[in-house]
């Protein structure tokens, strides 16, 4: 453990000390590398680095854009060089780091930041400097409603995810005659949770469901007993939940201890799709349904997904997940645009990003492709819905991508 | 000028003072004595506003003042010193006295002027610029008196200002109290050091177990068999070091 760490430290120090050679294309990457979300930040960092290494390498077995080209052919084989920065979950630090990357490290573009609040301030800095900002992993709707010219988002946003969830419910009704009436919403009272809860409530009402309880709770608390008791009293069919990892784990354990069993638990990604979630929950994590942007079983439909995952797993010992796959895809999409731009001039990259048109088979995501609208939002993004079955995330929606049938309702806690 | 009327102070069930009454005339020096635990400091704290009395009244020029907080008492002209000195350790000697002077002279230059005057009066002027924490115990006690004087009080409450002083220092302190009196400032002096208080007091008030057992001129007090039995017999023969 410590030797790899020392090596990476050395690499980071050397990287910081040596100025980029004229050939290199430097890209700034900002993630939360310390603090509560550090474990996710590390996954994102590893995935982005893997993408860069594949692009710089000559191994062509992976049929993805730029991969195996030994650098960027459009820039005479210039190599991608990633400079990572830690925003600590703090918007002010994110903005300062973006500024440092732009002015000090002279990056051609920035990718980040996972936290929507940090993405907001960091992309403001990029906007001020006129440097392209590629947002791979923040889903807050408002980010692409600011009229920014340098902001591009590959991932779908929360609104689409919530729409997906209701399409999924409608689909269930149509195909299987499963009727859901009572919906409860449980969300942490942060930007992420409250935003999702608001959309869920809106769409639930529009689609004729009854919202029997909406609970916003303070995150990372010591107990979730009151919340679960409230849920229990409300007797919902389906619980929509938005929680990060520690609360996801704590809530699941509390459900079990207090004998709370809704018909289904529809999670809003985040903690429920974290690599640690299933490791920790074991059998109790089974049958959780969650919105996702990526799942390993999609490899059955798209072999490149499996191959990319093998590379990642060989390096880091874990599978891709929605977050790391998005970071990986973001880097590929960014590199592809820079390559097409044929220059590191910001305007050229901006123009190239605007002209981006990647097709579905050029991605490891179940998306229709990448093409940005006038606000910089990828209009071809799509979500999927996965369910944990036998300790694995399997795609259950949309039917076209679905590899397994959904298990509905939740089986009793005991005897799983 | 000051009259204490049937002052009673209880802590929980215990009465620290009971029915304490005495008067202080303009420019008078009153010695408040009594064995340890007799309630002298409690009387002091009531007079200075630190403890609201449980019952009874305190009048200053006829106005009832019992229960007023210390800062109001100070504004009405009652200043005090503390048995265990409480100088402002982070300040210089001059600054300590300035805090007192600011009661009536808010502006800094005026406060400096008043403070220097007070320091000259008490003879501490040559130490004005030194940090207060560097003073000797005797000087610290003198500083407290100076600081209280800078408030321009009509009544000064001196709490064991002479305890722990050498013979010479006691003499200096006695001189100082006399000069304070000469300015028309009345003093109530709590003192264990009898040779310090007996010569200068106009009257003595003797407390025992919270009650006044004697009140009169020092000579009469010294001969009062009740007082001698309660207190003086043992103490007067063994003055402080």
């Amino acid at each position, binding site marked *: 453990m410590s030797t790899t760490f020392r090596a990476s430290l050395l690499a980071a120090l050397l990287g910081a000390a040596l100025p980029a050679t004229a050939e290199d294309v430097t890209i700034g990457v900002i993630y939360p590398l310390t603090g509560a979300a550090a*474990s996710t930040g590390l996954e994102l960092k590893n995935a982005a680095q893997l993408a860069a290494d594949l692009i710089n390498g000559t191994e062509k077995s992976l049929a993805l854009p730029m991969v195996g080209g030994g650098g960027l052919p459009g820039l005479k084989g210039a190599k991608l060089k990633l400079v990572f920065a830690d925003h600590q979950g703090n918007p002010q630090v994110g903005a300062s780091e973006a500024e440092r990357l732009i002015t000090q490290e002279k990056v051609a573009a920035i990718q980040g930041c996972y936290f929507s609040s940090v993405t907001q301030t960091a992309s403001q800095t990029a906007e001020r400097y006129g440097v392209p900002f590629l947002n791979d992993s923040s889903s807050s709707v408002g980010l692409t409603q600011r009229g920014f010219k340098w902001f591009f988002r590959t991932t779908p946003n929360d609104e689409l995810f919530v729409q997906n969830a209701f399409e999924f419910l409608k689909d269930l009704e149509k195909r299987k005659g499963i009727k859901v009436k009572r919906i409860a919403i449980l969300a942490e009272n942060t930007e992420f949770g409250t935003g999702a809860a608001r959309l869920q409530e809106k769409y639930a009402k529009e689609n004729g469901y009854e919202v029997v309880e909406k609970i916003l709770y303070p995150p990372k608390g010591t107990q979730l007993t009151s919340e679960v008791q409230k849920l229990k009293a409300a007797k919902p069919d389906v619980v929509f939940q938005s929680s990060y990892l520690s609360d996801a784990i704590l809530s699941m354990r509390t459900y079990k201890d207090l004998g709370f069993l809704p018909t289904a638990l529809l999670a809003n990604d985040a903690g429920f799709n974290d690599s640690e979630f299933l490791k920790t929950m074991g059998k109790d994590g089974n049958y959780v349904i969650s919105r996702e942007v990526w799942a390993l079983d999609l490899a059955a439909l798209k072999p490149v997904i499996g191959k990319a995952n093998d590379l990642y797993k060989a390096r880091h010992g874990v599978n891709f997940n929605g977050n790391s796959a998005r970071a990986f895809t973001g880097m590929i999409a960014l590199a592809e645009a820079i390559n097409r731009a044929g220059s590191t001039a910001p305007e050229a990259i901006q123009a190239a990003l605007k002209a981006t048109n990647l097709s579905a088979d050029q991605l490891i995501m179940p998306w229709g492709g990448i093409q940005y609208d006038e606000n910089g939002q990828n209009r071809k993004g799509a979500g999927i819905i996965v369910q944990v079955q036998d300790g694995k995330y399997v795609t259950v929606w949309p039917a076209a991508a679905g590899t397994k049938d959904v298990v509905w309702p939740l089986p009793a806690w005991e005897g799983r | 000028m000051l009259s204490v009327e049937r002052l009673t102070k209880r802590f929980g069930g215990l009465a620290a003072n009971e029915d304490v009454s005495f008067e202080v005339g303009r420019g008078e020096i009153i010695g408040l004595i009594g064995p340890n635990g007799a309630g002298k400091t409690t009387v002091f704290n009531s007079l200075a506003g630190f403890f609201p009395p449980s019952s009874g009244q305190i009048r200053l020029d006829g106005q009832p003042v019992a229960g007023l907080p210390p800062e109001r008492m100070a504004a009405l002209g009652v200043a005090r010193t503390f048995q265990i000195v409480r100088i402002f350790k982070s300040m210089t000697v001059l600054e300590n006295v300035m805090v007192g002077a600011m009661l009536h002279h808010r502006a800094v230059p005026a406060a400096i002027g008043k403070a220097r005057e007070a320091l000259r009066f008490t003879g501490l002027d040559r130490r004005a610029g030194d940090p207060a924490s560097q003073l000797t115990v005797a000087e610290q006690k003198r500083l407290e008196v100076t600081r209280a004087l800078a408030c321009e009080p009509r009544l000064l409450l001196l709490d064991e200002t002479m305890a722990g002083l050498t013979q010479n220092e006691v003499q200096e302190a006695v001189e100082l109290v006399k000069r304070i009196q000469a300015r028309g400032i009345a003093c109530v002096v709590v003192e264990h050091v009898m040779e310090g208080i007996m010569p200068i007091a106009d009257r003595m008030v003797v407390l025992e177990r919270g009650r006044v057992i004697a009140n009169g001129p020092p000579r009469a007090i010294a001969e009062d068999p009740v007082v001698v039995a309660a207190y003086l017999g043992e103490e007067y023969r063994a003055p402080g070091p």
Partner: protein
Amino acid sequence: MLLLQTILSGVLIGLVYALVAVGLTLIFGVMDIVNFAHGEFLMLGMYASFWGFALWKLDPLFTLPLTALLLFGVGAALYRVVIRRITDAPMLSQIFTTFGLMILFRGLAQYFWSPDFRSVEGSVLTGKVAFAGLQFGLPQVVAALGAVATSGAVWWFLRSTRLGAALEATAADKEAAALMGIDAQKMFALAWGLGAACAGVAGALLSTTFPIFPEVGASFILFAFVLVALGGFGSVAGAFWAGILVGVVEVVGGFLWDPAYKLVLVLSLYLLVVWLRPQGLMGKA
């Protein structure tokens, strides 16, 4: 029924808060230092249990005495190396020091054990306790009982042993204790050791239900502060009863009102109590 269940759940978690706070108040009572790094003792206790389980398949319940000893050592060593030097420093420097220690410990945990979430899976403590229509997780019940036992042991130690009496004497009056021949340095180290051990035991008890990560202490430290102030700085019994009170208010308040404001409820209760009784519920004036 739901309400009774909720109240009892509050008591269970409150007892764990109490144990964390007992350690904190012990340190405060003896030394007048508020330890911002106290949550990190809990974190270390959790990791100790985790590694015992991951490396040697030892159940956290069985390694609990070892965890307690280990944390006692950490606390005492921390006193000898760092805290000893700030005993007489102003309150602000003390806050500053323990705040730095908090960041340091979190950083060290991330450095050595990565920021990943860990958990103890398959401990003997799995399952449920159900009676009369009420049900609780076995780990919570055991954690609560363990917290009561440990708090009780600390209380007994202070009340009934010579060493405990010496510790109490030091807390009451350092000079007087020194005159009685009590070595204050030893007592301070003992307080830190015991305080850390209490938090460590709480960590071990929580390790079977709570996710384990470098910043886990942050969730508990605010409650511990509130309990210490609510119960009265330095009062072990006060911290204990305040723990139960706060646990119940938090859980029941969240249930009956809005969970978003359960912390507000607890903090407001605390402010109200200290406003009416600045010395806390059981503190000496």
